[in-house]
């Protein structure tokens, strides 16, 4: 067979995915697992289809909350990251504080947000924001700090100001780091949203799942899971695509060395 390695790899990934669900289906049928414990993929698909009109508004709610939290988190993360990454002193001073904040389990901040803003969308947005800040800050700061000293010397000798160096060298240099962190942050933002929705909200997929699980509607719980997975993968792909558009230079695309 003369398939290109890329096509081959894609076919194999697709095959792995299909086999996973097939295996799940078959094992459930053979072992006779109750659909109260683990519903079969085919059952989940049916529930997903039937309940879609009900699930759709919640899907949109979760998506909007996640995107809002993600956007706020990334913006804040970039601002903090640039601030602490462009000065050694700021970096050393702020780093312990940041590590402290980031090591707080994020589920613990939800009750605080609920006290402050009441149950609903706001705590969910804030949780997803808080959870997605840290990877952005660390990556942006690292990216800024990783400018080669010789390159900075070249610009300083030309009489470049700190701002010139930041705009022309440090920020573009930090872009691959930023986009790498976006892929992590978007996934975490989902975690934050769903977390807050299960604890303190009356809308969103997280809320649907917690209610469904109270009603032993396990197929509906799994439907929620499928929706979350689909949203997560979609947003990951979007960030990936953006990354390759903006920072293609760091992946050395194009023809190879000439000589």
């Amino acid at each position, binding site marked *: 067979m003369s398939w290109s390695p890329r096509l081959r790899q894609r076919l194999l990934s697709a095959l792995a995915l299909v086999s996973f669900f097939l295996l799940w289906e078959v094992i459930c049928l053979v072992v006779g697992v109750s659909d109260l414990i683990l519903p079969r993929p085919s059952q989940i698909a049916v529930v997903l289809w039937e309940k879609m009109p009900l699930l759709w508004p919640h899907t949109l709610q979760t998506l909007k909350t996640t995107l809002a939290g993600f956007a706020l988190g990334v913006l804040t993360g970039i601002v903090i990251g640039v601030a602490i990454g462009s000065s050694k002193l700021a970096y050393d001073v702020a780093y312990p504080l940041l590590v402290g904040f980031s090591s707080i389990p994020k589920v613990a901040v939800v009750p605080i947000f609920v006290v402050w803003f009441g149950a609903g969308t706001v705590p969910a947005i804030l949780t997803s924001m808080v959870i997605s800040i840290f990877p952005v800050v660390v990556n942006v700061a690292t990216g800024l700090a990783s400018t080669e000293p010789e390159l900075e010397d070249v610009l300083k*000798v030309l009489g470049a100001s700190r701002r010139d160096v930041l705009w022309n060298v440090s920020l573009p240099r930090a872009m691959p780091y930023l986009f790498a962190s976006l892929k992590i942050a978007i996934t975490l933002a989902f975690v934050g949203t769903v977390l807050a929705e299960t604890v303190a909200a009356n809308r969103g997929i997280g809320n649907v799942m917690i209610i469904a699980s109270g009603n032993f509607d396990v197929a509906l719980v799994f439907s929620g899971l499928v929706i979350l997975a689909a949203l997560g993968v979609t947003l990951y792909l979007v960030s990936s695509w953006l990354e390759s558009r903006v920072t293609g230079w760091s992946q*050395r695309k194009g023809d190879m060395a000439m000589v």
Partner: protein
Amino acid sequence: MAEPSFIELSDVSLRYGTGTVALARTSLSIETGDFVALVGPSGCGKSTILKLVAGLLQPTSGGVIVRGREQGSPSVGGERLRLGIAFQNPTMLPWLTIRENVMIPLKIVPPFRASYRAKRNSEFADRAEALLAQVGLKGFGDKRPWQLSGGMLQRASLCRALIHDPQLLLLDEPFGALDQFTREELWAIMQSLWIERRPTVLLVTHDLREAAYLANRICVMSSRPGRILETREVPFSRPRTIQSSYAPEMAALVQALRMRIAEARSQEDQAESQEVAA
């Protein structure tokens, strides 16, 4: 009093932190339009002198005066000295094309800075292309840095150092990482660029043939602490060729320099072993 030199180092010492003395009471003057090479073993403070002249380091004592002004002092009015610099590592920005990399100084240095946006696709781009063609990179302006070999990147790095017509060009072993053929080719290119534009050049190198081929004057340095042992004129006529760099007179000069450095090194080793013994 005579007209002050373009670059005056008087009794300059530099100590890193509280430890190593990189440079001890060194004096050096360079006239406008001269081509001076600093040679010596690694770690002798050659690059330190270059960085002092560039204003990237401040001396612990002594004065570094460039064109009548203390280097590193805040520029009070007047036009800033135009400097160009190239290192052993070409340090091209990977997200820009070669042409854009070469044009970086035009983006930063006045008076080009003010009209960069307006002229970057016309006049400045032509200027970069012309310079690239001069170093043998015609047609490579649109390539990205990773598509070029090390020798080609070093050529581009020379273009970047020269695009804004610097009055002073600082070269820190720019040909150090290249193979011999590429190196000799770049010597010839460097020489013709210097003859054409006549910037003042300070070249740091450990290659004695390179110094003899390119420079008007060679300063031999010793290490620990770094100081200038002796200065030699290079009397050979220009343009010099690779053939002439193997001529007996040139070979004799290189040999003499080599002996001087070897002598300094052996004295140093003796001094060191005495220190250890004591």
